[in-house]
């Protein structure tokens, strides 16, 4: 009885007066149980905009995302303005089909943000990874809306210096290197709590 009532209440056109929007967000398992335990729904929120603040390239940011990208099957992944060449043989070693990947050459900041919004909104990609240093509140909000519209996850790699800036992203995390382990400090988790996770990659 309660179960059928619950399923009725889940109907998307039903709005409940407690103010919570009735869209249960789907979560993509991150592949790391320590991290999944800290994320609401047990994984990366989807669709969403995620901000990863990194001290430098190579800290482990791609390894962190690879299980999620693998989870997405044959859907397209876009890499916009990547710092180096995404190396196809390594992707194959990680069981990611490189032909799923769309890459751009180095871009100017505005062009990267423009391309990211287009890619998120198009609905063609499951994940859009962009490397941008500066992004205003307005732009980030646009990206968030675009990710919702295009049903995909947008990951923005920014410098650790942006930590104090406000951001509308669903999830913000600071990545760091700590004695051979990756530390993930979740500084903003929408409908969740901030926490710090350390794990070996």
């Amino acid at each position, binding site marked *: 009885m309660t179960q059928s009532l619950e399923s009725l209440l889940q109907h998307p056109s039903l709005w409940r007066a407690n103010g919570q929007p009735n869209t249960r967000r789907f979560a993509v398992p991150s592949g790391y149980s320590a991290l999944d335990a800290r994320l609401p729904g047990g994984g990366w929120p989807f669709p969403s905009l995620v901000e990863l603040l990194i001290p430098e390239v*190579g800290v482990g940011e791609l390894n962190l995302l690879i299980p999620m990208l693998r989870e997405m099957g*044959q*859907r397209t992944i876009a890499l916009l303005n990547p710092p180096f060449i995404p190396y196809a043989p390594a992707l194959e070693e990680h069981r990611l089909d490189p*032909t799923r990947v*769309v890459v751009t050459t180095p871009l100017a900041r505005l062009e990267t943000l423009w391309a990211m919004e287009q890619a998120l909104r*198009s609905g063609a990609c499951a994940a859009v990874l962009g490397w941008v240093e500066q992004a205003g509140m307005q732009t980030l909000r646009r990206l968030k809306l675009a990710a919702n519209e295009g*049903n995909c996850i947008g990951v923005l790699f920014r410098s650790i210096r942006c930590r104090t800036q406000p951001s509308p992203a669903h999830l913000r995390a600071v990545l760091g290197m700590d004695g*051979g382990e990756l530390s993930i400090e979740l500084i903003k988790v929408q409908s969740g709590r901030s926490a710090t996770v350390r794990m070996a990659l």
Partner: protein
Amino acid sequence: MPKPAKSDVRTLALFPADPALPAQPSVRELPVELPRRKPVAPLAPALQQPPGSAHAQPGKGQLWLAIHLSRLALESGLETRPRDPLGEQTLLEKIAAWCHRFTPVVSLEPPDELLLEVKGSLRLFGGASALVESVAAGLRTRGIEASLALTPTPRSAVWLARSRGVRRIEASGQIEHPVVERAEDLARYLQPLPLPVLRWPEEIVQRLVSMGVRTTGGLLRLPRAGLARRIGPHCVIELDQALGRHAEARRRFRAPERFDERVSLECEIESIDRVTRAMESVLHRLQRFLRVREAAIAALMLRLEHRAGPPTLVRLGLAAPTSDVAHLHSLLREKLSKLELRSPVNALRLRSSALLASIAANARLPCALPRQVPGASGGFESFPLPAANALPRLIERLQARLGRAGVFGIGSLDDHRPERAWRATAFDGVSRSFSPPGPAKVFAALGETFAGGTRPLWLLPDPEPIFGGVADPRSEATPSAGQAWQIESGPERIESGWWDGSDLMRDYFVARSPRGIRSWVYRDRRAPRRWYLHGLFG
């Protein structure tokens, strides 16, 4: 060619009904007379006896001009190129489209001929010879070598044009194009033609040669029934078609339709923004044009005409044909936003590529249900798959702004050298299809136990030298103190490429940078044995 006999007219035969021939009265029952030297109206009676057949007077009142494109360069061995059937067809269609200025009835005879029915155009162009001359002159100015022939039947015209092509090669003199306006004269012109001109199957030609027949004239002198039995009725019908005794249906060539509209603006426009707005109404008409024809286009050319100076051309090539004008509009807008106007625009012209058939995508019903919100349990299967054209569109849009080379795909190659083990693949609609790839291939077969890779996820485009060296804490021999780079595993020796000049001899290691980044470094085994950073494991 055999010398003509004394008699003027020789009656060949009265054909008996032949079971091998299709039941066509005009073929079976007509007496055939072949003129030898001076024709005394020999064919006319035959043609005037229509025994109640639909093909009663085949080709009457028609004049066909055949254009045979010569392959002089190819055949004389001056230049050899592999044949390009598609290119030949395109060339033929281009010439056919050009030929529409002489007559509306143009027919293709692939691979290298086309036919024009010009009876109705004779007066306009001042007679048959003048018409042939103007076609020939037009082709010459376009750099096309061709031989022409004008006769009352299409097949004989083609044969004659071909034979002129052959003769031209032998004599390499000036061509004069045969013009035969009366059907009675046809046989006289056809007689000397050598058999290869007919382009019959090689074995039939061989058989005829072994029978002593070397020309069309010899062929026509043979008894008809026997000939049909020996070389097949089709060939006999072709002979009849050439002589105008049998009608030949020709498929008419129609030039592919395209959208082409020029709008002259009421006042000159100086800003790109307004050009975009002026374009809108034209695009709206393009939309209607495509919709009523159920067609799509693969390219669009926008030409901005200025008060002075050459026009500005904006070419839009699409990865996949589309009939969605809103999409074209957004792409054009991206293209135009990069443009700088040299001088004010006073007219614009929008021209599409040839139309392609399109299958309209399903539109949404006005009362469509809201999008299903996937539950947490559903996984990715509960999300709708992206539309098939979503990815090509995204790439077109990105390329419109970032340039064609700005967006690419990646793939791996079988090479031991790290720089050559990957490649960028272009998205140009040809080299890579946009069809969804098949099920995950090798990647699933490796199993879940696989953990990490031996190759870095980031590859540096150019290896960066590491100053100060790399320490190996695993061996006691090298002092590790004071050296920040620490080796974790290795070496992996890569020595390859001596055959193509870019050979390398390297020992690769996995190492930690001073700040703890897992990196892929190598030591060049050739002097001065320096260390380089080549990748990051990310």
